[in-house]
């Protein structure tokens, strides 16, 4: 008996294999797509950021970015904008949502109109404010019509100092962001059953007690999602700043990428600088994204799946 007989597997209908692998088959295109058009470019970028101009490994690119004279201001400006956009604008939106949180005559039209700013593309937002903030623009005209300034008291908005310019950018950001965040929070508030809050009042709580102990905790999932998604997009602000002030007057991180990639693309260090800045922005945004996934329960084990 020198020959070993391999036991023949019991014939399984091919459909059964198909059934088992069908979900993966449906996911195959998206996986291939992401490997080719996302993972590969990301890896290329990471490698490029560590590659010297003559080839070979280097940390020089990061060193150049970190010692770039605009890096400090860019990081600081981005941080300030993100801080305001996420905290103060968010609190204002929450306050407004709580004030408005009731059905009133015309609430449908109000929400409809309040949604317009969030629908406007960044380039068009730039068009709105660049025509507004020039000395002859609509902003000064409006202030004149309202009787706040006289005819020869024009305000030169775009010639203001850094702090005032930052404030202007934050206000423009607020104009676009607050109504949209407010609508999202309103939707969340409307999902809270009225009885839970009424119960709080019945047991003697005042408005702020009920708000703190009942409303806000119930709203927490909406709040977390809104804050972190805001965070991710606030880090990437650039277009409105460039459209109003041009490059380099108020550097922010993503503006630096476009600056090196588009504005001074023939500089011999441009590609390296752009890659370095891109990695830094991606790293910060990734941290925010992971925080988002963490809070939304991505890292909790899926019970149904664990049983498999």
């Amino acid at each position: 008996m020198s020959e070993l007989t391999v036991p023949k597997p019991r014939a399984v209908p091919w459909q059964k294999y198909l059934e088992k692998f069908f979900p993966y088959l449906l996911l195959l295109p998206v996986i291939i797509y992401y490997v080719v058009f996302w993972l590969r470019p990301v890896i290329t970028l990471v490698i490029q950021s560590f590659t010297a101009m003559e080839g070979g490994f280097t940390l020089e690119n990061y060193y150049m970015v970190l010692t770039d004279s605009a890096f400090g201001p860019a990081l600081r400006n981005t941080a300030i904008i993100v801080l305001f956009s996420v905290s103060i604008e968010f609190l204002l939106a929450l306050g407004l949502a709580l004030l408005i949180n009731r059905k009133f005559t015309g609430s449908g039209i109000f929400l409809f109109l309040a949604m317009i700013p969030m629908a406007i593309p960044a380039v068009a937002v730039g068009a709105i404010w660049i025509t507004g903030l020039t000395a002859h623009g609509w902003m000064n005209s409006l202030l004149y019509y309202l009787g706040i300034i006289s005819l020869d008291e024009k305000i030169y908005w775009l010639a203001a100092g850094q702090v005032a310019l930052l404030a202007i950018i934050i206000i423009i950001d607020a104009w676009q962001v607050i109504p949209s965040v407010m609508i999202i929070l309103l939707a969340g508030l409307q999902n809270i059953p009225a009885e839970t809050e009424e119960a709080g009042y019945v047991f003697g709580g005042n408005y702020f007690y009920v708000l703190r102990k009942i409303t806000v905790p119930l709203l927490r999932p909406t709040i977390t999602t809104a804050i972190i998604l805001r965070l991710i997009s606030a880090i990437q602000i650039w277009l409105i700043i460039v459209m109003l002030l041009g490059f380099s007057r108020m550097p922010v991180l993503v503006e630096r990428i476009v600056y090196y990639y588009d504005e001074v693309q023939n500089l011999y260090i441009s590609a390296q600088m752009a890659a370095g800045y891109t990695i830094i922005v991606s790293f910060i945004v990734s941290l925010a994204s992971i925080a988002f996934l963490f809070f939304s329960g991505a890292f909790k084990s899926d019970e149904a799946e664990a049983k498999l």
Partner: protein
Amino acid sequence: MNRRKSRYLSKAGRNTIFYTFIFGLLFVILTPIFFVVSLSFLSTREAYQYPLPLLPELVTDFKLEGGEKGYLVSVYDKFEGEYQTVQDTDDMEKLSVYFRSQLSVYMSPDEIAEQAAIYDETGEPVYFNGRKNLIHNYNTFFRITRDAGSAFFRSIQIALMTIAISLVIGGMAGYSFARYLFRGRNALKFSILFVRMFPGVAIAIPMVIILVNLGFYDQPIGLALVYSVGAIALTIWITASIFIGIPVSIEEAAEVFGATKTRAFIRITLPLALPGLAAAAMYAFLGAWNETIAAIILTQFNPTFSVVVYQSLLGSVGQVNLAAAGGIVMALPAVFFTFLIRRYINQMWGGITF
């Protein structure tokens, strides 16, 4: 009794405060938009006035009389309440061009010459008016901006390709997540969300080489491939939540009556999922339409519409009425589609439950 009355009054008072507040909010939200829409209809002469007129004039009033070099043409200025001299010439061609470019009034040299002839006969100042062409700025924007028209259609083409790619690939994955339980489901689900949140600019720069190798650099399909990275993830997100809402039992019922699995999917599930698929398609459209930074990096001679508007606005502060018209053209499709999908916006932010 007294107490009830005072409570009633305070309720009315509170209502007044509430509506004042609502109107104040609307004023802040809508004023910038109102001014830009109004500005996009102003003639160049009006747009250079300070303070800016709140609304465009529909008709311009002219006065024509004898001048040193020929005819003195004046325009009625509503703000000052008087006629202001704008031209002194006997060249009707020049007047016609001036009317057109500065006042948005389309009058041929012959039509102006007719009025001049009346003056020559009577020797009295002639008053006449010209109807303003309201869409003059829009016409001019498309005429003088480097290939704005072709960029507009290119952007639409890119957006449609993005919709096609993301609906097919994302829809399949969304169905898989909604209907099947399999190992690695949760991990895959969230890595896709991570891809979506990763900044788009990060892949745009290395994509240049990849697209050049594929022959897709500076081509609409190249940008569609880049935009699909984000759009696919969002499509999976939306379609998964839609498919999960369609009970498997109706598909099974169709199979009981003799339909194949594919047929049941096409005839039963797909029509029910249509609203969600439409929402996903519109999100893909908006993402592709509004994007600027990757388009700057990945195009050279064939820019998208957002790049054209961006470049025409950059440092062209003088042409405020043209800037406004460009911004409005850019915003209109986006605003329109956002209102079509407003039901789904909360869903997008609400939670990420599949």
